């Protein structure tokens, strides 16, 4: 039930944002997340953005595993 999906923020108006989920456009609330900008990827849950997805961290996680793999070879 805590399912949250990534969405790209297209536009912001007050405490609402228009986002794209794989091309599907949705209006979501920004009432529980601050500092969101157009272009950010956010996690949305039951109509609310709950976090900005950190692309650097996403890459770092993969890099840790790639390095581990390289070490073993």
């Amino acid at each position: 039930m805590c399912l949250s999906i990534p969405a790209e923020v297209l536009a912001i108006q007050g405490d609402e944002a228009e986002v794209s989920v794989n091309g599907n456009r949705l209006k979501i609330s920004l009432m529980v997340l601050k500092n969101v900008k157009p272009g950010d990827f956010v996690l949305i849950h039951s109509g609310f953005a709950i976090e900005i997805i950190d692309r650097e961290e996403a890459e770092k996680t993969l890099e840790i595993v790639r390095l581990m793999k390289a070490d073993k070879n």
Partner: protein
Amino acid sequence: MNWLEGYRSRELCEALTSEIRQLADQPLRFMEVCGGHTMAIRKFGIPSLLPESISLLSGPGCPVCVTGRVFIDQAIYLSGLEDTIVCTFGDLIRVQGTDASLEKARAEGKQIRIVFSSLDAVELAKRNPEKKIVFLGIGFETTAPGTAAAILRASREGLKNFSVLSAHKLMPPAMEGIISEGIPIDGYICPGHVSTITGTKMYTPIVEKFGIGCVISGFEPLDLLQSILMLTRQVVNRKPKVEIQYSRAVKPAGNPEAQKVMREVFEPADEWWRGLGILKNSGLKPKPEYGQFDTREVINLPDFREKEPRGCICGEILKGLKTPHQCKLFANTCTPANPVGACMVSSEGACQTWYTYEGKN
């Protein structure tokens, strides 16, 4: 941006499983306490990638599954009141109460609407000032901020016809409850999106009091395998701690704004959990200053009694004591089309995920 590339890479996942195999030279039992993880673990066949020494147990992490039948009974009662409309997330609609589900009650003409967001229920209240709108507040820390935000909006707009029937629950008391019942586990795969809101601090007592490691995990195969590796390392090195694997979505301090909204509206309350009973301060209810938005304060509810369906072992399954295959009803009288227990209703319930991905036997 492709979210799946890398996180579903066969080569990277194989590197992780080979490392896990090398390290896991003793029996290890890790419990996932998020329904989303239960589903992802079975869907991606994670157990088949692990050495036999590692068992994965499903815990009480599906809010629909741990909510009592009384909650459904109350919701159906409310939907039958002449001037009342009940709003719910789709997740709850097929869950059985003592005599019926919300789906059945709706088919009989009761006023029940499925909403995408708690704010849709507030909108409905604005548009229907002559009706009382009751929103069924269900879910863990991930969902509770949205319910709190709906109450704040209703309060700011001066609505007098919106209230929340709260069955919101908090994860740590249930995680401690599992350990206190003596269920042997060597580590927790901690819920990703609950932790997005809360951050890491709430898991520290589990490490300090019980010496059990906590790794906050994402939902892709690579996430789950890396989290299992991190937990295995903790056990091998005898250094249990709280770690974040899902760092792209979870910050150590969590989401401060969501926490603020939750703290503003809710206070802790004792809650009943299927399988675990009443756990102190494991739920959330609106504070007295938001009492006018608390359904239990504004509408008189009859006294319903909690009664488990005969033969259903959801309670034991939710504690990791039994697997769905050990239930006599499983795939027999209890199926996704005709569920007896809530664990078969929810797509995140242990029984439905086993039925879907593990087969009937």
